[in-house]
């Protein structure tokens, strides 16, 4: 049934339909509406005996789910940004223990400076934590990926993170088809754990492993991710058969058949990008888009096949590895090693900076001419950068950068009243 609904509420509705047994909650913008909505559903008794725990930190939120999942309960929470980083230790632990927890990340920047708006720094910082990471382009996909996430997590005994762009998606109202409960029940079987804390069959979970077997245990975690590479496309097929809608998969190609320039990205920026591709194609420019849905596991082979015919590949990413450049771009470059094409890294949309069609078009045209610096920072205010660097050179005790920059920008800004 199509409903005009906020992204967070749509996610909460589908999570509820997946019948989680334990939900933990710690507030952090921009995911808070999800857990608020779930909290009301549990309190109203709509979720039967589901337990909802208001905890004291994100570290506790995930830790509660580690206990719940190990006791055989389908377990869910949502977080973002600093919260995801505060969970870091437990993230590695949950995947190491093979616990199929599902978590929504309302992607948001990481401070300092504190910033509540969208980019992918949070999820990318945790890319090696052993979780499967799926990125949604719009709220329909966010809904669909959650159903697939529970299925995949429990099939593989591996936690799954569903990444949904903060504000851009979590707070956007759009038409979403929310599958009926019966359809979800028919697709998603009850959780059947491979290990469970049960007094009638005691096991020890979380033993210490030394040099004699640690590498083997870690390899098995890698193997699980490789297995996910095979499972994810099949799951998307099964999903399409069941729900009559294409969603998920490892990658989603758009007009790659004849594309000379391929834009690779994750998440909601694809929406803007498709508009730009439409316009540029109308002018005869063969642009294609490639959405990466599964960032972990990284679909290197599928990616290589998908873009093999392109001349230029532009990776647009909402994260920055300080001292290195692109993160997604590094993975893409490894996947495309040896292919005769130009790969361009573009850092865009950090801390919620709007990624506009005009800027994208200008950037693509520069890239096609080979005139783009690398990595390219989209719409970076170089005057601000140079001003602040000059200030730092002049005076050692020049104060906090963020405040100085805001002061300078304030002087130049036109009054809004």
């Amino acid at each position: 049934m199509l409903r005009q609904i906020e992204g967070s509420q749509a996610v909460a509705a589908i999570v509820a339909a997946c019948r989680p047994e334990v939900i933990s909650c710690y507030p952090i913008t921009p995911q808070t509406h999800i857990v608020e909505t779930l909290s009301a559903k549990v309190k109203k008794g709509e979720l039967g005996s589901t337990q909802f725990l208001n905890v004291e930190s994100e570290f506790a939120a995930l830790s509660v789910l580690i206990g719940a999942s190990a006791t055989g309960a389908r377990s869910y929470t949502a977080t973002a940004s600093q919260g995801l980083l505060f969970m870091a230790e437990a993230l590695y632990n949950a995947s190491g223990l093979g616990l199929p927890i599902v978590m929504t990340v309302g992607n948001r920047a990481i401070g300092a400076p504190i910033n509540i708006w969208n980019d992918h720094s949070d999820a990318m910082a945790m890319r090696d934590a052993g979780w499967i990471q799926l990125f949604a382009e719009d709220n329909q996909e966010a809904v669909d990926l959650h159903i697939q996430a529970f299925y995949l997590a429990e099939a593989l005994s591996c936690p799954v993170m569903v990444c949904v762009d903060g504000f851009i998606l979590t707070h956007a109202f759009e038409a979403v088809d929310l599958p009926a409960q019966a359809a979800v029940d028919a697709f998603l079987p009850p959780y059947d754990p491979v290990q469970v804390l049960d007094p009638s069959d005691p096991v020890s979970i979380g033993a210490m492993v030394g040099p004699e077997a640690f590498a083997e245990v870690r390899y098995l975690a890698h193997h699980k991710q490789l297995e996910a590479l095979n499972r994810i496309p099949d799951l998307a097929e099964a999903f399409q058969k069941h729900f009559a809608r294409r969603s998920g998969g490892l990658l989603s190609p758009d007009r790659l058949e004849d594309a000379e320039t391929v834009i690779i990205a994750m998440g909601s920026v694809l929406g803007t990008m498709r508009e730009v591709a439409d316009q540029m194609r109308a002018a005869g420019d063969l642009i294609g888009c490639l959405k990466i849905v599964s960032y972990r596991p990284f679909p290197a082979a599928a990616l290589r096949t998908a873009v093999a015919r392109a001349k230029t590949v532009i990776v647009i990413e909402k994260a920055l590895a300080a001292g290195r450049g692109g993160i997604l771009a590094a993975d893409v470059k490894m996947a495309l090693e040896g292919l005769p094409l130009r790969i361009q890294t573009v850092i865009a949309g950090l801390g919620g900076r709007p990624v506009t069609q005009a800027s994208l078009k200008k950037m693509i045209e520069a890239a096609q001419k080979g005139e783009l610096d690398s990595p390219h920072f989209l719409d970076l205010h170089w005057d601000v950068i140079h001003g602040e660097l000059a200030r730092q050179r002049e005076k050692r005790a020049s104060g906090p950068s963020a405040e100085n920059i805001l002061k300078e920008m304030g002087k130049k800004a036109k009054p809004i009243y």
Partner: protein
Amino acid sequence: MMSKQVVKFYQTGTFTVGNRLLDETLRTVQSGIARTNSLNSGHRACQGCGEALGARYAVDAAMRAANNQVIAVNATGCLEVFSTPYPESAWQLPWIHSVFGNAPAVASGVAAALKAKGKTQSKVIAQGGDGGTVDIGFGCLSGMFERNDDVLYICYDNEAYMNTGVQRSGATPPAARTMTTQAVGDAPGSRFETGKNLPRIAMAHDIPYVATATVADLHDLEAKVTKAVKMRGARYIHIFVPCPLGWGSDPAHTIRVARTAVESGLFPVFEAESGKVTDVTPIRKKMPVEDYLRLQGRFKHLFGPPKKTETLAAIQQIADDNIARYGLIEAPDSE
């Protein structure tokens, strides 16, 4: 020829040898053939380890009280490391270890899952050392308390980070030598600070049950665990467990060290329900704190030369304050 050792058995009032004199229902869990050996033999604790002893009695008592329906959560620490070196496990009950600072939250999750599944006959215990409890796990523990989650948390307090090689924790007493509060300088050992008394902090949450116990009175320890397991909500038991390695005490003196801690007043043994003290174990014969401190290498620097009389007096004051606060010495009959 082996040297002769005089072994004295005497009735201590603590049931250490008097078990067979008791009614069967009052006998220690460990004396029964139905004991579960939940922390089985063969683990790798040091000789004279107070934590291994305390855990063995506590967990078996919990098992008996819950009809063997117990799930245990363990913080990182000695107990975790010595009991589960892969591929061995000393645990004969369902047991999970996640990370250092989250045992109370993991236990909350186990309890929530049991509730969601209607398996409320199973009981959840969480256990950690003093570092995992009063320091790194403190936030999660306080959260578990205030939500009144259905978990019995047991802290095995050996007053420092022993697993990492004896470093100061928030539970390390003043003047104690650890590797990060060494016996050097003008004020050797750990500084005199305000301390972090977790049983009292637990009581401040008004949780249903808080108790302290020691390995010197294992029958009392078992009774408290038994009582706590049968209750619902958040419960906390703080067990004083000497560490021969970290404390520089004779492995044969573990019980003696624990008993002198109690009899000097340095470790008050009591029970509290819903934030109020309901019972204290009186000191039978008050010992000076020196009798406790002298048994341990970590306090050796106090005895000189020169003897640190001021420091010793300050420690004695702590014991005397405990005695006054908890009424550990019964007033003589006024008749």
